[in-house]
């Protein structure tokens, strides 16, 4: 392991002075990502501008045994880019170039620091767009999207980052160049592209991304449907799918959430409804008319108390504006909020929402629910005040119980935000020691020395044993077969 001085000196050998930050005033802005509850000053921040520099940084750090943590725009919500106190934070912010857009082949090749929304802007003149649209899309970068396998509100129909990235180029921690996938639809051997996407920056450092572009649907309309209770809204979702419809977007918000966003953006939501659903149809104008009519019939049969169909693009965007502004809106009504990201089988929605309501009473905290209803991805937002240490503690326990409930009903602790540092204890609930051990073995296959984003996403077995000791469920210890420390 190197001291700050030795690392800085080594990097100065090939990086310009502007690309190395090591004074506290310069490194402070990098101390956290979108999960601000966890902070750590990086020993050094490196801001390379070329692939050759990235390679040299990795070779240097690898030779010195110094940890490296890649970072995009820092909008991640799970602390995946929490810096190493004893290593180099590798900011890819200077990799902002669109290498090329090929409208006939419907691909864009971009550097990892290109913003998600910028890809669709590049493609727009050709009638094309990049489908995954995480709510942070105006700020988050494609490199971060690849690391987290980001989703958005259109995943059920158009897939996640995984389904929309064709190829990656980058380096291993040893600085060896690696290409995964490409412009063909598959590659020989194991699907390392699928493995790298969503690996939270722990397997490879990405310097170029090839994404698939889709034709922009000719037309899109959204139905806003009100329901008198949340379970009915959940049933309506199942009925839409049972009718053979895959909506382009299918989102649910509960009453506290619609009230909070309505004040913030004035989306025109029904504030009396216990829950609203936003159901979008896109495609050719014939398809959309047909699908909207079918969805309206299903929603009506499922007990919708009110329905409004967007009349034009402005109104459609207004209906979505509230959903997309859900997180910032919480910032107005509460000093802090904590966003969860569990996914559940849709049919368990009512049960899980009732469970969350009971936890609000148990912990004395308010929680609002926004929900990617189409794909079962829940984003409960717990409102709290971080200046009150007791509230933060209660919030974390509240969140932990919700995530464990998601696992108990057959779901997962994270649908699209990643594990990072935030949900690392809950990994011990979702996976058994043998599975965690395999994850570590897989990591060693790429990074034998464990230098690339160490300590994230996959807990050590010792950590799980410790967590299990503190955390007894129904009188049963998880990992009872593990030695206790």
């Amino acid at each position: 392991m190197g001291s700050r001085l030795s690392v800085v000196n080594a990097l100065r050998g090939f990086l310009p002075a502007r690309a190395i930050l090591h004074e506290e005033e310069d490194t402070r802005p990098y101390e956290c990502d979108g999960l601000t509850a966890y902070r750590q000053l990086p020993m050094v921040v490196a801001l390379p501008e070329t692939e050759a520099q990235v390679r040299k940084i990795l070779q240097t750090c690898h030779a010195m045994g110094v940890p490296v943590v890649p970072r995009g725009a820092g909008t991640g919500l799970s602390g995946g880019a929490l810096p190493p106190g004893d290593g180099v934070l590798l900011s890819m912010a200077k990799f902002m170039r669109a290498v090329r857009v090929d409208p006939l082949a419907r691909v864009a090749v971009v550097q990892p620091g290109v913003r998600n929304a910028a890809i669709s802007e590049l493609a727009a003149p050709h009638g094309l767009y990049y489908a995954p649209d995480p709510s942070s899309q105006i700020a988050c970068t494609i490199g971060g999207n690849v690391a987290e396998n980001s989703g958005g509100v259109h995943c059920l129909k158009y897939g996640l980052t995984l389904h929309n990235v064709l190829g990656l180029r980058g380096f291993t921690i040893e600085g060896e160049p690696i290409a995964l996938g490409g412009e063909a639809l598959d590659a020989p051997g194991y699907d390392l592209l699928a493995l790298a996407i969503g690996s939270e920056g722990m397997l490879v450092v990405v310097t170029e991304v090839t994404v698939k572009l889709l034709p922009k649907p000719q037309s899109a309309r959204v139905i806003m449907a009100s329901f008198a209770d949340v379970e009915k809204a959940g049933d309506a979702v199942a009925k839409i799918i049972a009718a053979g419809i895959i909506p382009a977007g299918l989102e649910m918000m509960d009453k506290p959430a619609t009230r909070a966003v309505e004040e913030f953006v004035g989306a025109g939501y029904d504030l009396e409804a216990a829950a609203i659903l936003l159901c979008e149809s896109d495609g050719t104008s014939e398809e959309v008319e047909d699908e909207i009519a079918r969805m309206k019939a299903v929603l009506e049969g499922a007990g919708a108390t009110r329905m409004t169909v967007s009349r034009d693009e402005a109104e459609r965007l207004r209906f979505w504006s509230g959903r997309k502004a859900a997180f910032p809106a919480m910032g107005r009504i509460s000093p802090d909020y904590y966003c969860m990201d569990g996914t559940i089988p849709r049919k368990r929605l009512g049960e899980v929402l009732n469970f969350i309501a009971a936890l609000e009473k148990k912990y004395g905290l308010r929680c609002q629910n926004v929900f990617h209803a189409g794909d079962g991805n829940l984003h409960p937002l717990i409102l709290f005040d971080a200046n009150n240490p007791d509230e933060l503690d209660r919030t974390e326990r509240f969140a932990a119980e919700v995530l464990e409930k998601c696992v108990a009903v057959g779901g997962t602790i994270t649908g699209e935000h990643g594990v990072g540092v935030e949900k690392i204890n809950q990994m011990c609930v979702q996976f058994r020691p043998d599975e965690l051990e395999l994850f570590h073995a897989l990591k060693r296959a790429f990074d034998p020395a464990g230098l690339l984003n160490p300590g994230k996403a996959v807990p050590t077995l010792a950590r799980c044993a410790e967590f299990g000791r503190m955390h007894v469920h129904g009188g049963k210890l998880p990992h009872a077969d593990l030695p206790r420390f």
Partner: protein
Amino acid sequence: MTELFQERIREAVASRTPLRLRGSGSKDFYGNAPRGEILDTRGYAGIVSYDPTELVVTARCGTPLVELETALAENYQFLPFEPPHFGAGATIGGCVAAGLSGPGRAAAGAARDFVLGTKLVDGRGRVLQFGGTVMKNVAGYDVSRLLAGSLGTLGLIAEASLKVLPRPPSERTLRLEAGEGEALATMNRWAGQPLPVSASVWHEGRLFVRLSGAEPAVHAAAHRLGGEAGPSSLWNEVKEQTHPFFAGVEPLWRVSLPSTAAPLQLPGRQLVEWGGALRWLKSAASAAAVREAAAAAGGHATLFRAADKSAGAFTPLDPVNARLHKSLKTAFDPAGILNPGRLYADF
């Protein structure tokens, strides 16, 4: 039953006996020659859970693909990647292990895109579960999708959960006259427009296009694209390789290219699928010539069916990828007993 798999694998590790994981053997021809003692997966069969409104089916490895597809069809659903069976007994385990996709691949996605979770027996005989039954899941590395196409070299896929979708209510096949270059340009142009094109085949001057979706959209697109009505049986013939193109003794190459790549200048006959991204080639050209042409066009070539596969079924990996493959193999199967050599000769 998974206990039997575990036991068999542990014994094989102890005695250093290679195992050949096998369902019905419908894809025995695929990849490099299988070797080892046969471990028949068909005893562990049946659909574990299927709730159509959750859009997920979970099945044991020995479940016949026919049985699974029938259960889906009863609920007007299907596997959008349209896996080829290559035999009446094809199983779901083999389907995921081979990772092959049919005509719908370019529009709907590949086998790996629809794998949501797996239960695996690894090379140490441990039962491990990855992914799950929900659409969005980023907890832990995506091992399930890594297994799609791994040809049983990383473990025995005991169960798989697959995403399913509603079957399109309406489908129509069009036939147009076009040379290969013109067909490639047309398919790429159409793919960039909001049209319900779900599959395409070009062969001997004819371009066939399948439209799928809501009836009004299919009708409008058919009207716009023109051409004549084509045979809807074509898609299954191409998927299962019963189409006359696939007959004959010359080696069959599966050449995967960027969809806009120019027509391959190689001797032999061709059939083009996936909007230009998949070129089937019946040719006696040397492996080196085919692989060179594929690489020059930005893709790779698999020797799909051939009497002689001494050139290796799959395009050799570059040194970094090769090292990672071997390290991964060791992580999953340290004794190297699962389907050795099936993917690459050296592991």
